[in-house]
């Protein structure tokens, strides 16, 4: 099975240096782009391949790039931002790519920057990723030394600088317009759209923001073509995908598999199934802002369209398994506490609603809940839901809650009727 993104990641953990990655063919995409392709050719190729953004929303990457204005009167510099904030609980795929193969990201960023004619690029890196930071800074220095970054790359008239910016910590920084505010030294509060970043982004200039995994694909697609990419997927969406599994399974970790691989296969075959003594109750498929997938739905294919069809979302595709020894109410409380803490405070439903949700869940978990809380929680799933807030933070927070209220209704009722958490008495 082909593993384009992780094939060069070595088990012992030291990433390839630039010479080794060149020998492995890793920089041929950059050579091809700079010597043989026009920027528009690159955009069209990525469009043809049908690459969908790996940051969670699955937006078509080539289409996003085509929104960047072209021509001699474009405000400059144009910026390319790599979103490496990865703060959503349960998500750990970008760390794997950053630590495992930094040159894959750099090569992808050079090709992407050429496509949109960006001359400055930032990697917005989560502060906690200390090892990734060291590895990236070293790799970037190597790329400058070999003439892949800086002025007139490989003798062309294309120039690019890449900077690493480490975040000062806050989940909302990962939202693309909040990320831009943060890079400008401000509080990370989302901006109104339009204008979209592609026309007015960082410092008011055209800006493209892509996820780490998205950018890691670019030079591979250039080397191997759109059809190659499409044929890697099983169910209409191209490429492979980094799937992750954490929780009580035998082999938690990252697995690169064809897009559209069945969830059960990932959990049972690759992650080794449940640890002895634990049973699976539900799965959060792609980070804390995605809806539960229940045991009876495990035959769902993991791609953007199929997960939507079962009422969930792919998100980051790093799954967290909820087992039968963990209380689902406590689990939901843990999730909503996170979202309540991380609200940027800009809009009322999110700022006021999420803490109320958190308090009600805590009360139920501690045996002080009332049945009417369930009505109120349900009300909040709309009140904090899509259309009522400035960004997707609060609606994302409501996804696991909405499905949890439905799927775990009996567990909620037991807490309320028995006035304590049934899982705590098992201790």
């Amino acid at each position, binding site marked *: 099975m082909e593993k384009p993104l992780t094939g060069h990641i070595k088990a012992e953990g030291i990433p390839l240096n630039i010479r080794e990655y060149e020998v492995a063919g890793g920089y041929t995409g950059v050579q091809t782009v700079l010597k043989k392709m026009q920027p528009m050719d690159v955009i069209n190729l990525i469009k043809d391949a049908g690459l969908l953004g790996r940051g969670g929303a699955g937006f078509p990457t080539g289409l996003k790039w085509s929104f960047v204005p072209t021509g001699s009167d474009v405000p400059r510099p144009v910026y390319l931002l790599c979103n490496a904030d*990865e*703060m*959503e*609980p*349960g*998500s*750990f795929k*970008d*760390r794997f790519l950053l630590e495992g193969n930094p040159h894959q990201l750099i090569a992808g960023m050079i090709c992407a920057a050429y496509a949109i004619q960006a001359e400055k690029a930032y990697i917005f890196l*989560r*502060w*906690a*990723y*200390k*090892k990734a930071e060291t590895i990236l800074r070293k790799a970037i220095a190597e790329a400058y030394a070999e003439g892949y970054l800086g002025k007139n790359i490989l003798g062309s008239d294309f120039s690019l600088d890449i*900077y690493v910016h*480490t*975040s*000062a*910590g*806050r*989940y909302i920084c990962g939202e693309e317009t909040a990320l831009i505010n*943060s*890079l*400008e*030294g*401000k*509080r*990370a509060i989302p901006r109104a759209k339009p204008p979209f970043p592609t026309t007015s982004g960082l*410092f008011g200039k055209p800006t493209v923001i892509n996820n780490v995994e998205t950018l890691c694909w670019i030079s591979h697609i250039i080397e191997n073509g759109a059809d190659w990419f499409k044929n890697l997927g099983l169910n209409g969406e191209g490429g492979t995908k980094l799937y*992750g*599994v*954490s*929780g*009580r399974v035998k082999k*938690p*970790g*990252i697995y690169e598999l064809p897009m559209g691989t069945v969830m059960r296969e990932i959990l049972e075959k690759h992650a080794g199934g449940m640890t002895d003594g634990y049973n699976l109750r539900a799965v*959060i498929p792609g980070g*804390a802002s995605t809806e539960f997938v229940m045991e009876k739905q495990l035959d769902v294919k993991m791609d953007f369209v199929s997960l939507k069809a079962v009422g969930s979302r792919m998100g980051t595709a*790093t799954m*967290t*398994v*909820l*087992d039968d020894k*963990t209380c689902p109410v*406590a*689990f939901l409380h*843990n*999730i909503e506490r*996170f979202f309540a*803490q*991380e609200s*940027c405070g800009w809009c009322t439903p999110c700022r006021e609603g999420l803490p109320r949700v958190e308090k009600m869940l805590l009360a139920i978990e501690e045996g002080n809940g009332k049945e009417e809380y369930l009505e109120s929680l349900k009300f909040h799933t709309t009140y904090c839901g899509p259309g009522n807030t400035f960004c997707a933070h609060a609606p994302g927070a409501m996804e696991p809650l909405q499905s949890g209220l439905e799927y775990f209704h009996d567990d909620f009722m037991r807490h309320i009727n028995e006035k304590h958490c049934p899982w705590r008495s098992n201790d």
Partner: protein
Amino acid sequence: MLTELEIHEIKEEIKLYPYAHAACIEALKIVQHYRGWVSDESVKDIAEVLSISASEVDSIATFYSRIYRKPVARNVILVCDGMSCMVMGYQSVYEYLAKKLGIQWGESTTDGRFTLLPISCLGDCDHAPSMMINNDLFHNLSITQLEDILEKYI
């Protein structure tokens, strides 16, 4: 007062941006690097270097969770309380540390050795439960290892 070195480093950062106040977060990080936290006085000093108001610097400083506006101990322990670490039992890690050090979330030991803080998801969920002490990551934690880990930090 900021040191010559701090001012120099902040001015170097300013050069990377179209205007000075864009370097605000970097300036806060620089000061925290040398002092462990950012005091009211430092907020005023940074504001002066960036030519913006102290309240603006403060609103930025308080927004970001990794900028400390209160003193912290020599070593900061960040225990992940994210959902995967919950499933894998971070609570027992916290309870052990709290008992051993005699402090709760948000508190510091009286000898100024450790501050204990929760952190949401370290992006290390496949090795849960996880924690960081200063810049070091520790994972697949079981409480039997914790005593040895703590001993490395004085």
